[in-house]
């Protein structure tokens, strides 16, 4: 299998704290990887490093075999990586369609000027994540947490990613909303999307992943099938504090 994303000995220090300590793992094309660990393990830091929102102190990050550590966030997105955030970040004064519109824009000033928005594509994308047509002109302030996560997914999908990094997609959702998002992700997996998913909701996470990496205090402590990782002594100790 072709490796889509590879992290090699990635180190990130915040002052005296080592948030990511020599992390090495990779994701194959079409694979779904769970990234688990207790609070403060450094999971979100890894996402930020992969996206280039912060830069690592050492180590390399490769996408399709190419080093991307020198690229800005929007350039990495242009190459096919995208992420969602633990706390959704919609454009507050824009409706659902407007939020999706920004995600769909090409990174080209001339095209942004010369070509108007594509309402059909916006609607199609909104429907594909489970919005109804009537939601299109709702403002984020009126949306539920589940709808905000859908909006975040839609805006992320609008950039046409090959790999999506999902940060706590199930946090703050009702049981019904979790089922909806799970179905959506399962469908995207069938369509061949590659995922790295961070979640504390392990039960919802399990059916969505092929493999898991567990970490604590910025170090990798286990890797393998989801079951094997969950049964690992060190992982249990990290979660239960033994």
């Amino acid at each position, binding site marked *: 299998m072709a490796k889509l994303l590879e992290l090699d000995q990635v180190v990130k220090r915040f002052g005296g704290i080592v948030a990511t300590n020599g992390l090495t793992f990779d994701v194959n094309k079409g694979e779904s990887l769970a990234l688990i660990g207790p609070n403060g393990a450094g999971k979100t830091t890894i996402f930020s490093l992969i*996206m280039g*929102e912060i830069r690592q102190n050492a180590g390399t990050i490769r996408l399709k075999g190419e080093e991307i550590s020198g690229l*800005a*966030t*929007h350039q990495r*997105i*242009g190459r096919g990586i*995208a*992420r969602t955030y633990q706390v959704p*970040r*919609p*454009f*507050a*004064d*824009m409706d659902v369609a*407007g939020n999706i*519109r*920004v*995600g769909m*824009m090409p*990174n080209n*000033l001339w095209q*942004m*000027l*010369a*070509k*108007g*928005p594509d309402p059909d594509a916006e609607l199609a994308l909104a429907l594909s994540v489970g919005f109804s047509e009537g939601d299109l002109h709702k403002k984020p302030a009126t949306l539920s947490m589940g709808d905000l996560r859908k909006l975040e997914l839609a*805006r992320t999908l*609008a*950039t046409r990613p090959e790999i999506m990094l999902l940060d706590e997609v199930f946090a703050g959702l009702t049981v019904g909303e979790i089922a909806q998002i799970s179905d959506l992700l399962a469908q995207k997996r069938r369509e061949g999307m590659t995922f790295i998913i961070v979640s504390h909701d392990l039960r919802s996470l399990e059916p969505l992943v092929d493999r898991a990496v567990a970490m604590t205090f910025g170090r990798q402590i286990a890797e393998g099938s989801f079951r094997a990782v969950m049964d690992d002594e060190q992982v249990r100790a990290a979660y239960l504090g033994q």
Partner: protein
Amino acid sequence: MTMAGIVTSRHLLLWLLFGAAMLALPQFVSNGTIRIIIFANFLAIFAMSWDFLSGKTGYVSFGHPFLIGIGAYASAILSYRFHVPLEFSIPLAVLATLVGGTLFFLPALRIKGTYFALVTLAFMELMYQLIQVVRPDLTGGTRGMSGIKTVLTGAAPNFYLSFMLMFVIAFSLWLLSRTRLGTALDAIAMNEEAVSGSGLSTTRLKLFAFMVSATVAGIGGAFYVHYLGSIAPRALFDINFVFTIIVSALIGGASTIVGPMIGAFFMTFLLEYLRPVLPGSERYFVYGMIALVLYVYKPKGILAILADLRDGMRAQGTGRAQRGKAS
């Protein structure tokens, strides 16, 4: 696609009506009023320049006279000292403003919010000090210059010129702000990280906004100085001038382009009608109060009040119709 998607025929009709009404104006009002409207036109240009940068992207400029001043001084010096004809001095001045706009843009790469506003204020102050000491033989130093060539003479011709400038700028910026690019600039003010998280280069978008804003400020500044026929650093690089620009944009409705235009007219007439009652700078206190009241009750400005009125009238209309049906 393009035009049809972002502009309706109703919009165009409103713009045409507005243009026609304004062009007919000199037939009906006194020369004094015309002179006031000329100032309103220039203030509108400055307020829209500010709005395209600060209203849209949220990078608040407290130093817009820095850009306006480059346009004004460059054209004034070229024509007054070097006898360059205005056809060349004005375009050259706009180019100079673009260079200034690039300087203005540099801090926006690193800082935002209050810090950015303070740096732009420092730009203006620096310009004010420099203009007085560096080559006063060119700039006229503290006393400035007078007897600068004017483009046209007389109230009515100057009104037509300033209005056409203002109208073309307003319509162009309004069109720009309705494209996807305009939407992206609005998004920067809401959440800059999420814009780069959507795969867009915020640096490039911001640079575009700065360049457009600088061009408009340069055009406005250059034509303004050739309308006044004189220039003095004290009046130009003045914090009251900054506030007049910002308050016009904000009370009109920031980020809407049309709002700042309305705001500029409102402000000019307000200041003018207060002049007999409050001849000194106490007038600024009054508009400060109006601005404050408006921010508290209607932060989106006059344009939002007008929209509310329109919606209210529509709702009343349909309400009446429904009641009529019921009875």
